């Protein structure tokens, strides 16, 4: 079996690292491989060190894995801008120096001689020797300049990569031909070719070759944010309102691009309070609507979120977490907004929170969020993070070959309104204490419908919508609203099972996680089992209402558990303890909050910590089980 390829391209932010890696990943996918990308970038538009990893294998890839085996160090062109030198300092060696720690033994390095001087990298020669790295200095900038423009050195780098990996250039050429045309295309193809040739006649000392694979069907390359947008579209969402904030912007922009094509409406508005309020207004009027943001923007939505709960207005909100508190680290992932999303806004929370783990789940669970929101008249939140937002994965195109379901759920037609409960004055009972079908959902009418007039209000209200502080009415309405959560829990059990299991059922050790780390956990679980540990995992997606039965059964079935999450205080573990009221002494926390996602080896070490008393990785924090 050929070794997997884990290719890292590094350079200055603004140097086109992102688009180059996307294209390369797409070429790899088209040529039959499974791919997964991991993006690391600083919170500035130009300059600063950035890299993207593309992991490719003949088998499906679920995570970035541990380290990488091919480095393309392009140099940071912005650091060399003489005018800005005083500010940036002399950063040009960084794309080489900063990336060496995770390069695997025997790995390949291509660096741009024109921009990077390895003699400035501390102990470079020694490290190369020690790690058996294979180094190929190339004047990528020179090649690019000669044939076109200096910025096209990315293309030169990809050409060299292809030669060194014995990867057919045609795949990349085809992709370029799809993406550009005219002179730009010609120049890029030229550069690609001479870079390829300039490497070809060298003597290779490394063994790494591009793996080969073949897909049975057409593939698409999507990020978690992309998948959320497509899930929303297929569920009939035709209204989005938002305000840009990284990384939520990726959902917002894709929706904005597509909505006019399908006769929908996108609104960029003055702030996030307005954004969520618009979504509520549109939904109230009878359209499937969404909004969303990231931590700070979601904080502003707290107020309209409560209004949606009180008025029982269906709406879907997306929360793309990034490291906090406050503006935190805008381009770094964290799962620190969990409690914020579960409990923000005044009063007792009546909302649904789903946390997808990967691209496919992002699509599925966004659809589920809409379905639940409109069936149960409750706000539903899709909670994910910067990691899932930006990582690209290949998915079978047929996965998206689904029927749209634009159904407005528990919304009445005019004929049904005519038969519905009305109070003495003839007013439609929008908020019945005990809906006729025995459920906790009192069907709604829409403005404009004959006979359905009512007042929606954020104040406590009677069945007709009149403001009321009557204690009996209050209790009846509260119980009904809260009761919906229990119904949804049953419904989730019956119709959807969002929890994901991995590993042998009879394992002694359990790993619990939520959201984007499930793929990494799966990789760790496989490795641990191969090493003789009995380990299994559960990835929990239903956070509110919590998948009580599943989590209980899982925790009961293991001797000890590790709760893996990306924040400093163990919010997910706290949720489980709070909801289930036990298992404290069984649950250990493995936490990471330095802005980088977990790598499988850290989870392996975390589990070994409880199994054998080993030390966890220095980038993580281990919090032992309560009662220890």
């Amino acid at each position, binding site marked *: 079996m050929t070794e997997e390829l884990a290719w890292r391209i590094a350079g200055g932010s603004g140097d086109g690292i992102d688009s180059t890696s996307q294209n390369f990943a797409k070429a790899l996918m088209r040529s039959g491989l499974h791919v997964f990308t991991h993006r690391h970038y600083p919170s500035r538009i130009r300059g600063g060190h950035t890299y993207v990893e593309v992991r490719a294998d003949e088998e499906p890839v679920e995570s970035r894995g541990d380290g990488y085996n091919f480095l393309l160090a392009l140099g940071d062109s912005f650091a060399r801008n003489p005018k800005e030198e005083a500010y940036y300092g002399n950063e040009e060696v960084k794309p080489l120096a900063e990336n060496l720690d995770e390069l695997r033994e025997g790995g390949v390095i291509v660096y741009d001689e024109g921009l990077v001087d390895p003699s400035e990298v501390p102990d470079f020669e020694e490290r190369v020797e020690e790690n058996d790295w294979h180094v190929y200095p190339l004047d990528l900038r020179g090649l690019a300049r000669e044939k076109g423009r200096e910025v096209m050195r990315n293309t030169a780098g990809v050409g060299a990569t292809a030669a060194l990996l014995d990867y057919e250039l045609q795949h990349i050429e085809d992709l370029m031909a799809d993406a550009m045309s005219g002179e730009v295309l010609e120049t890029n193809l030229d550069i690609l070719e001479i870079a390829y040739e300039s490497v070809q006649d060298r003597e290779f000392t490394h063994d790494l070759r591009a793996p080969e694979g073949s897909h049975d069907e057409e593939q698409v390359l*999507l990020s978690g944010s992309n998948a959320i947008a497509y899930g929303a579209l297929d569920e009939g969402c*035709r209204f989005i309102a938002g305000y840009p904030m990284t990384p939520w912007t990726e959902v917002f922009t894709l929706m904005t691009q597509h909505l006019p094509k399908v006769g929908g*409406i996108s609104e960029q508005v003055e702030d996030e309070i*307005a954004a969520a309020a618009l979504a509520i207004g549109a939904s109230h009027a009878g359209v499937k609507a969404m909004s969303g943001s990231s931590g700070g923007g979601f904080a502003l939505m707290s107020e309209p979120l409560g209004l949606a709960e009180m008025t029982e207005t269906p709406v879907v909100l997306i929360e793309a977490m990034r490291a906090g508190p406050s503006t935190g680290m805008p381009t770094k992932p964290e799962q620190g907004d969990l409690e914020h999303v579960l409990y923000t806004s005044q009063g007792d929370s009546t909302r649904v929170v789903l946390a997808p783990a990967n691209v496919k789940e992002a699509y599925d669970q966004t659809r589920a969020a809409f379905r639940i929101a409109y069936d149960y008249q409750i706000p539903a939140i899709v909670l994910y993070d910067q990691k899932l937002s930006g990582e690209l994965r290949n998915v079978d195109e047929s996965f998206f070959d689904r029927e749209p379901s634009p159904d407005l759920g528990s919304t009445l037609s005019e004929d049904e309104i005519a038969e519905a409960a009305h109070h003495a004055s003839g007013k439609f009972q929008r908020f019945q204490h005990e809906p006729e079908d025995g459920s906790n959902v009192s069907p709604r009418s*829409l403005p*404009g419908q004959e006979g359905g007039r009512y007042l929606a*209000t954020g104040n406590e209200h009677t069945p007709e919508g009149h403001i009321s502080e009557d204690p009996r009415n209050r209790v009846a309405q509260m119980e009904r609203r809260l009761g919906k959560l229990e119904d949804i829990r049953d419904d989730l059990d019956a119709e959807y099972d969002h929890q994901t299991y991995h590993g042998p059922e009879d394992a002694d050790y359990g790993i619990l996680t939520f959201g984007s780390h499930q793929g990494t956990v799966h990789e760790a679980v496989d490795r641990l089992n191969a090493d003789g540990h009995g380990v299994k995992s559960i990835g929990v997606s239903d956070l509110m209402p919590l998948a009580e039965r599943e989590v209980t059964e899982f925790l009961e079935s293991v001797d000890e558990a590790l709760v893996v999450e990306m924040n400093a205080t163990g919010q997910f573990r706290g949720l489980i303890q709070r909801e289930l009221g036990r298992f404290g002494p069984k649950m250990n926390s493995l936490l990471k909050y330095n802005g980088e996602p977990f790598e499988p080896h850290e989870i392996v070490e975390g589990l070994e910590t409880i199994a054998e008393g080993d030390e966890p990785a220095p980038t993580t924090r281990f919090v032992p089980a309560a009662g220890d």
Partner: protein
Amino acid sequence: MSAFNAIDSDREVERDDYTPGIEPQATWCPGCGDFGVLKALKGAMADLGKSPEEILLVTGIGCSGKLSSYFESYGFHTIHGRALPIARAAKLANPDLEVVAAGGDGDGYGIGGNHFVHTARENHDITYIVFNNEIFGLTKGQTSPTSPMGHKSKTQPHGSAKAPIRPMSSSLTAGSSYVARTAAVNPNQAQEILVEAIEHNGFSHIDFLTQCPTWNKDAKQYVPYIDVQENEDYEFDVSDRKEASEMMYESESALYEGEVLTGRFYHAPDRPSYGEEKRAVGEMPDEPLVERYHDDSYEWERSYDLLDVHK
């Protein structure tokens, strides 16, 4: 007509059709200007022949926000300062609705100031009534953005050091295409202005002077008022921004000296509304979006057909 749209515009309506089963006396104090707004709104809707079904009245929080409780139509009593973003989305989603938003001066010019500016700027086709009683009524008499300088209250015991906001001037600058001021003490004018504002295609803003006898005894300043359109001393072209702006300035300066000018201050009937602009650039469907959900023959687009860029 789709299966959804039941609005029957030809129906005869009367004032009483807008009276729900509950009475405003329950929360509004005797002598409150809010009664005047309610009366004028009912009269205006009856004049226009709007049926209660086709009206969506969106209100903020305050004594003023209770308007939707005492006016029979579809209503949405929202949160403090947020009536406008909710109202404008409802209008975009269903342009067939007659959308009216209302709230107090604290609600609209204070906490909701950002939304006010942007809704005006975008010229959404909705009518916005601001109950201007120069005070926070519901929270018991604190200084509001329209309280005069030197105004004393529990939260400004030394007298306010802040100049009051100029609602009409701000509105015009922000981009409203219809701006008027009227007063609860003048129900006839109020009703006429409301009719005109609701008929106007674009953002209509009415600074509606209301008295709060409970917390703002100076409310008597609203009497007597002068109707700018009825008085030859105040001739100006209501569709000319510059002239309108000068008149607003004059009126807003005089307000706190005891002279109250009311009437239409700006009216740009030809400016397209936001919905029309959005349609023109291809960002909004021609048919009301809501109708599609009730049209069984509509073929819903699938994301599957949009995936090309990801291949």
